[in-house]
């Protein structure tokens, strides 16, 4: 679920090739995101789960699936071990 949310964002907003995300061992550094792009991607999760992900730059050296697992662990840590349904985003309403 979390992986799909992030993949959808990357394809729709960051122009990442969807085929690249199908590769099981794809690395975050191969997605063409700069540091700001990485932070924008994390906001997609942060906005829905109501907390700021810790130390974003650590993801730059991970595989994509490792990053998703690490983010999921953080979401669970903020929600008593659960992975709740993501809240509707408010980004559209706040970007004017």
């Amino acid at each position: 679920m979390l992986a799909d949310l992030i993949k959808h964002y990357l394809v729709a907003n960051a122009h990442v090739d969807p085929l690249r995300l199908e590769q099981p061992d794809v690395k975050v550094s191969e997605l063409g995101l700069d540091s700001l792009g990485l932070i924008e991607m994390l906001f997609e999760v942060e906005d829905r789960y109501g907390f700021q992900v810790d130390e974003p730059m650590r993801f730059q050296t991970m595989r994509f699936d490792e990053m998703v697992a690490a983010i999921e662990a953080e979401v669970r840590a903020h929600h008593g071990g659960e992975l709740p349904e993501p809240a509707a985003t408010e980004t559209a309403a706040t970007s004017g």
Partner: protein
Amino acid sequence: MNPVWITGLGAISPLGADRHASFAAALAADSAIRPASKHASAGLPGMLQAPAADPRLLLDSAYAGVDRATQFALVAAQEAMTDAASGGSELPQGERCGCYVGIGFGGATTLDAMYARYFALLAGAEDNRRRAAVVHPLSVPRMMSNAAGALAAARYGLRGACNTWSVACASSAIAAGEALRAIRHGYLDAALVIGAEAMLTPGSMVAWNALRVMARMDDAEPAASCRPFDRRRCGFVLGEGAAAVFLESAEHARARGAQAHAELAGYGASSDAGHLTIPAQAGQVAAMRAALAEAGLEPAQVQYLNAHGTATEVGDVVESQAIAEVFGPAAGALAISSTKSVHGHLIGAAGALELVLATMVLESGSIPPTAHLREVDPRCTLDYVPLHARHGCSIAAVMSNSFAFGGSNACLVARRVGH
């Protein structure tokens, strides 16, 4: 000294989504002023505004998230750049071309929405409170005043100076004047000048309302609520939008075969060095005289003046007296209008929009009226072109005044180019 030509014009204003629509509506006195939306009124009765078209409809989706003022700036810039490119060979790029922007309250829409969301979540359901502090990571680069210049420079590859002036109502007149100087003195060959503003937000409307300078609604005819130089005037209406001009040295424009709309011939800037909001005649006179002197023109050689004309009690009288002092015996033959009567006050974008309109007056020989001016204030003794446009006028030079809160005054003079 290099003459500086205006080779590109663009605008998205309450009057229309491009410069031609805007000028046509100004000539027709077709007011864009209307009752403010419920959201923007913030619970205040009788609020007015002059909104422009949604700029996102005219832009690539890549700009969907940037501040509304930046979106307006990019729309006006693309019209001016297309216009500048249409006559001659390829547009200039690189270090010899700058981007000069004027904006009053950059990022107002982003900032207002951020605070609204923050406090709404804090005051809302407990489950959601922790979400209040999670805001978009681009909030700062979206709301910074120089965002419009940064994105426009990047879009067109303008690697010369990219500077933003924030001087309230004179912002973009000063941006144009400073660009004129940079080209005239050889620091640049060309510059894209943009004025932009978008603050028809609840937070900004309550603040402007508190200053007691906003027009009261004319219940019978809300569109006629802003009446510069009229005895019954009661203030201005906030507008939004952007305008852009492309400036280049005559030498540079000739070399690439570009056509000139006009020569931007003179710029004057001064400070009242006095009251925060009450204008002073001496400061306005100084700015107008400096602009005429730089252009090498006598007052009698200017036929049209787009006035600052905000329809405030004090402002219109002081400006009239300042014009009378500068123009002396020639004041009687000068046609003056305040187009704010129909497009509202665009604050940071006002100077650029009114320069675009004044340049179109120069080119067309048609003068937009001061709309809704039925009863001239006896203390305002000049020709304000009341109610109806004049066509077929012979116009060799025009002037545009922009006088800011804070006492900064700017005046621009443009004239016909003798190729």
